[in-house]
């Protein structure tokens, strides 16, 4: 120190300047200590909750900025959201919602039943072209009876309705034909209101002073910093610049575990990885070949090799949906048995080795999985050639069912209907497998239109038994989801659906 000072007044002045700047930075930091600094991977493509479904957008808008009529608790149970209670008519075709009173939008205007009705109509509006429209396909009309009562008329009873409503944001009335306004300036009823968006930089939210449950909100605001590089996010949480990394990959999680001042939270994700089969042409049009593929897979080994051991072998529904999921142990063909696979291929009458191609989603974890699967299938009598197209080409081939096999990932939900109906029912909107099984169709129709829970559970149990062994998708894994949390952040809870809704209850020490 002495030596440095001896070097002259210029340096001393510079040093003093630096100290002053550092002090200033500290003071500035203390003043805004109540704003939570979060680092997320990607910049959102837009902020309209009815248009963007990309995860980078929805994690920021749904929960922190917007709320739905219904909501989810940490254990994924449906709880009241903006609706305090609801009742269904005897035939199940009319559902009446009683809304919470005293709810205001971020501009201070009260939220009324007309806003809810308008929001639901907006999702169905052709001008907006919302990808969420299929979730409200059962809706016939939405009417505001009075300021706090909403009546929903349905074409047929809909069991998944309440779950669907958790993901449909309530926006101010009168935007039915407008698809631009909310993309840039979101306006919801949630705990935080939108303040500033610097594309590729950050999004800053401030506490919504008029929030209906304002006592719960302790943060002055949340700043989502967009930091695309995993190593950089890791540096940022290490030196305290960020207090939360909501999503950390398995490799980084291993490195962060045990670091001082950083706690890791984990849960099993609802989205799953899968190998899809094209059932419209040989060899996967043969049910025995599909069964053989399941026997040829060692899911535990795939998870260890490709996902750093972080994940659970995947039944058609994730185990966290306790009311619905069938345990993997109850699916006989989940036992790894290459000999049996070869026997089944012989029974099917196909010449071995069966040569097929597998189109792989361009994402590192999926590529890793595909390579392990290729090698496992090789032992059981398949010869798999991997195809690695870029994303656009992948999507195109996927959409046009231009594949023998594909390796990819599917979004999760809390509702069995979301997993099965679109993907596996005959003519379903994402049934790229070209799969058709009348028996399964009957079960899925029943699961959708029956309101009686035990009867629904029975239907989905049977559906999972069919899908698990002879269906067009071999479910591979539900990966583990990690969050890294600085020790000064409290009240944050990781959600299996990646929701950041718990920020409304979090606080900084």
């Amino acid at each position, binding site marked *: 120190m002495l030596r440095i000072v001896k070097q002259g007044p210029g340096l001393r002045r510079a040093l003093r300047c630096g100290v002053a700047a550092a002090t200033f930075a500290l003071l500035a930091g203390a003043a805004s200590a109540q704003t939570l600094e979060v680092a997320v991977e990607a910049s959102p*493509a837009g902020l309209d909750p009815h248009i963007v479904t990309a995860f980078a957008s929805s994690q920021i808008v749904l929960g922190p900025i917007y709320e739905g009529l219904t909501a989810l608790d940490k254990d994924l149970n449906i709880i009241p959201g903006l609706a305090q209670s609801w009742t269904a008519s005897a035939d199940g075709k009319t559902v009446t919602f009683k809304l919470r009173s005293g709810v205001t939008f971020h501009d201070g205007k009260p939220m009324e039943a007309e806003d809810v009705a308008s929001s639901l109509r907006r999702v169905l509006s052709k001008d907006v072209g919302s990808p969420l429209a299929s979730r409200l396909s059962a809706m016939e009309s939405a009417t505001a009876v009075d300021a706090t009562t909403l009546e929903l008329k349905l074409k047929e009873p809909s069991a998944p309705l309440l779950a669907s409503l958790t993901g449909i944001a309530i926006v101010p009335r009168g935007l039915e034909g407008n698809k631009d306004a909310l993309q840039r300036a979101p306006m919801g009823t949630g705990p935080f209101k939108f303040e500033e968006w610097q594309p590729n930089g950050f999004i800053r939210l401030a506490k919504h002073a008029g929030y209906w449950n304002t006592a719960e909100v302790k943060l002055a605001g949340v700043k989502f910093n967009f930091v695309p590089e995993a190593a950089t996010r890791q540096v940022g949480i290490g030196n305290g610049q960020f207090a939360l990394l909501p999503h950390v990959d398995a490799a980084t999680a291993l490195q962060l575990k045990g670091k001082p001042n950083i706690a890791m939270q984990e849960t099993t994700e609802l989205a799953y990885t899968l190998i899809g089969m094209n059932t419209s042409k040989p060899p996967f049009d043969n049910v025995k070949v599909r069964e053989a593929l399941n026997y040829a897979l060692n899911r535990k080994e795939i998870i260890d090799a490709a996902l750093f051991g972080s994940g659970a072998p995947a039944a058609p529904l994730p185990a966290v949906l306790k009311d619905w999921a069938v345990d993997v142990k109850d699916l006989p063909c989940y036992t790894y048995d290459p000999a049996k696979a070869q026997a089944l291929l012989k029974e099917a009458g196909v010449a071995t080795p069966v040569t097929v191609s597998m189109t792989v989603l361009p994402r590192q974890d999926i590529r890793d999985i595909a390579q392990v699967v290729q090698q496992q299938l090789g032992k059981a009598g398949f010869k798999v050639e991997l195809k690695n197209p870029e994303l656009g080409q992948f999507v*195109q081939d996927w959409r046009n069912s231009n594949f023998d096999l594909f390796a990819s990932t599917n979004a999760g939900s809390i509702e069995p209907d979301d997993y099965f109906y679109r993907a596996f029912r005959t003519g379903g909107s994402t049934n790229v497998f070209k799969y058709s099984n009348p028996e399964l169709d009957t079960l899925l129709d029943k699961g959708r239109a029956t309101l009686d829970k035990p009867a629904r559970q029975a239907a989905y149990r049977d559906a999972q038994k069919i899908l698990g062994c002879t269906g067009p998708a071999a479910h591979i894994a539900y990966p583990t989801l990690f969050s890294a949390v600085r020790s000064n952040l409290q009240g944050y809870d990781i959600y299996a659906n990646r929701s950041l809704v718990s920020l409304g209850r979090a606080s900084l020490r």
Partner: protein
Amino acid sequence: MLRHLLQRGLDLLIVLFGISVIVFLMIRLIPGDAVAIMLGANTEVTPERIAAMRGSLGLDRPLLEQYWVWLSRAVQGDFGTSIWTGRPVMQEIAAQIWPTLQLTLFSLVLGAGLAIPVGCLMAHWRGGRADLVLRVGAIAGLTIPSFWLGIVMLITVATLAPSFASLGYVPFSEDPLGNLQRLLLPAIALALPILANLSRLVRTAMLDALGQDYIRTARAKGLGERAVLYRHALRNALIPFVTSVGIMTGYLLGGAIVVEQVFSIPGLGRLILGAIAERNYPLIQATILVVTVGFVLVNALVDFAYALIDPRLRTAS
């Protein structure tokens, strides 16, 4: 001189026209239906939404008409709106061009500025031990990719001086010190390969110049070594240097893409990457056009600088 400039201007227009055609055709040349692919990651796309987007991009009209409409708007600075945010594309670019320009300039000043004295010293000490060390260092600097260097520097600084390793970007007008602090590491990462490249170039050019007759003459006149080196040799050595600086600017724009990604700086590079990832074609078209035009203009400036440095080039054309 005037003819020289006019000739260059004409060349420039032809190049720009070529670029505009390529950028325009891009959206039509990719295999498959661009709109379906653009909406691709989303599994619940309706035919109505595809039709609406095709209409809003003007893809339902004849090709020549589309090009004319696109070009006539583009020359007025209107590249349409960003597909996802609905903001005018030029507005998005304007918001993110400054960090990149600042970073480019900063690293160019660092890299090229240091390259002249370092190259001169290498030439002065040619064959000596210091020259050898600097040459080996220059080769290392050339081969190490800047994004890797960036990550290593970031992790090292974060371990040694955590409070210094701030990420992101603040505008100079808001916080000058914070701005420079945040740009210093990425600028060094980008400047090192430039320094390595240019200092070798200066060394060779200086050695070449020092062997010429006019240098012997200058020495024979009794000029001091410093004057010989800087006033006579360097001036001639600068011509290849200036050419390289022009090319380096193009390199910097490319390098900035990855370095911006590492240091999470909201610049043009991140804008391009993001636009490609989300298949935001109007934004991709506009950013590529802006970057190429920038590159072409820099090269035109380099040509102009030749004429300033070397009077012979003025009369030759």
